[in-house]
């Protein structure tokens, strides 16, 4: 790890001021940033420690749950109010990383963790995300873990966060602070598609600080589920994952909010799959139609074609939990 300076910030405003320095970076848990710096994937002249900022609160109110950016994954997952009102969030968090990492890792840092694409993390290999214009090693390389939806001919990396997938299905909002003041960004608009600039991953401005998340918890009739398919039973990133918030009344789907992980460069939404469900009974034919709508336009690469049937089966499995039949 290259040498850097270290400065703790004592208020969000002070942190944002310090972050005006071009090569400065915030450090929260450090669980992704330090790995990237050890591997020489990222280099920063200064780390701004934001752990003393008063952004750890978890507040459960009548219609929403508010999470401070520095709340730890384990604290959010284990919070009784979160488990009661937003079980999907708790499930997605507990399906990620290990107990030790969850004790360290913050909610804000989780959203900004970078892809596990092994070419991105190997600084000797060409990678458009790490070094724009150098090429994408995954397109013709080992791409078993890579995207089948939403990629471009510049990058097919998948976003690794389970939390982001759950928050997408839950329609959460990210709150931030920058030199231009505070703002709110729906999670659904937070991540960018790779297009020609895979190095740009979110709509955040340089030095913009995530202060927290607002998660609506209004619909008490809807049920939710998170399913994560992994190469081993636990402590592994998703091969594919599904987050679903579904309301079924008198056997008919009234509401369906779906998000998918492991298949795309950003948490993937499929309005087409949702539309295929809404207003219909959860019969095998409906479930199959939703699956087909989901993967329409999918592009398989040499080693990841299996994800196309797998994500459809994962969706069917999740819908099964709401009373669907295959």
């Amino acid at each position, binding site marked *: 790890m290259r*040498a850097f300076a*270290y400065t703790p910030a004592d208020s969000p405003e002070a942190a944002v001021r310090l972050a005006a320095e071009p090569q400065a970076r915030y450090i929260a848990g450090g*669980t992704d940033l330090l790995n990237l710096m050890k591997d020489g994937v990222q280099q920063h*002249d200064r780390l701004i420690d934001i*752990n003393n900022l008063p952004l750890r609160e978890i507040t459960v109110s009548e219609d929403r749950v508010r999470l401070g950016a520095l709340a730890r994954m384990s604290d959010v997952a284990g919070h009784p109010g979160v488990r009661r009102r937003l079980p999907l969030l708790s499930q997605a968090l507990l399906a990620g990383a290990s*107990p*030790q990492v969850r*004790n*360290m890792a913050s909610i804000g840092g989780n959203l900004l963790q970078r892809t596990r694409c092994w070419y991105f993390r190997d600084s000797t290999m060409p990678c458009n995300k790490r070094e724009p214009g150098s090429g994408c090693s995954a397109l013709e390389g080992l791409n078993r873990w890579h995207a089948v939806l939403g990629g471009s001919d510049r990058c097919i990396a998948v976003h690794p966060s389970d939390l982001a997938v759950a928050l997408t299905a839950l329609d959460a909002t990210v709150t931030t602070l920058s030199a231009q003041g505070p703002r709110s960004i729906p999670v659904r608009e937070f991540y960018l598609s790779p297009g020609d600039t895979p190095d740009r991953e979110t709509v955040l401005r340089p030095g913009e600080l995530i202060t927290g998340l607002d998660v609506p918890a209004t619909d008490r009739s809807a049920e939710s589920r998170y399913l994560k398919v992994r190469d081993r039973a*636990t402590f592994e990133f998703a091969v594919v994952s599904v987050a679903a918030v579904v309301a079924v009344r008198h056997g008919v789907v009234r509401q369906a909010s779906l998000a998918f992980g492991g298949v795309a460069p950003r948490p993937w939404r499929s309005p087409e799959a949702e539309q295929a469900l809404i207003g219909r009974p959860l019969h095998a034919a409906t479930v199959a139609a939703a699956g087909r709508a989901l993967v329409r336009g999918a592009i398989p690469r040499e080693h990841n074609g299996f994800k196309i049937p797998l994500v459809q089966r994962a969706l069917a499995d999740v819908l099964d939990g709401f009373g669907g039949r295959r």
Partner: protein
Amino acid sequence: MSEEETPTKVGSTRRTVLKAGATTTLAAGTPLPALLGEAPASAAAAATATSPVEVSLTVNGVARPCTVEPRVTLLDALRERLGLTGTKKGCDRGECGACTVLVDGRRIKSCLTLAVMQQGKEITTVEGLARGDRLHPVQAAFVREDGLQCGFCTPGQIMSAVALIGEGHTRSDDEIREWMSGNLCRCSCYPNIVAAVREAAKEMS
């Protein structure tokens, strides 16, 4: 490793094997400058800002002042500065759990945090568990249940187990397995580790 491996075939003790294993791990996982905290040859970064800082780490109840560069991890500070080599470095990437310690009673991976970030916190390492000659119940259970072979992962397993029992995740063997999943064991002692955690939890309840 080839040279050190030879003696194991002609009846070496477990300790020689352990030593060879440990040496290999260090050589593979640790760039020397990082261990020594040397300034990089091409010190482009401002020398003053990145130079060593005085920190005081509270380890096993004792304040331990030391001087570290900001980039030194808690793991390297414990092992290389404070001589507390019980905490092991396996992957240095958060993946194996060998470096597990408690900070303010919570288990973390010490390879993924900076020493400068841990000032004012209560750090507990495996050296802080025993009371004189009396082993901690978790340590005793690992010995009794034979929860180790080479022993490299053991300090991390034990620290994780101590925390897990406090968290109350011991209602079934499956639950123990899930909540110990951040600690890998190359010797695959998992059944005995689960038994040790189960027995220690019973004893401590």
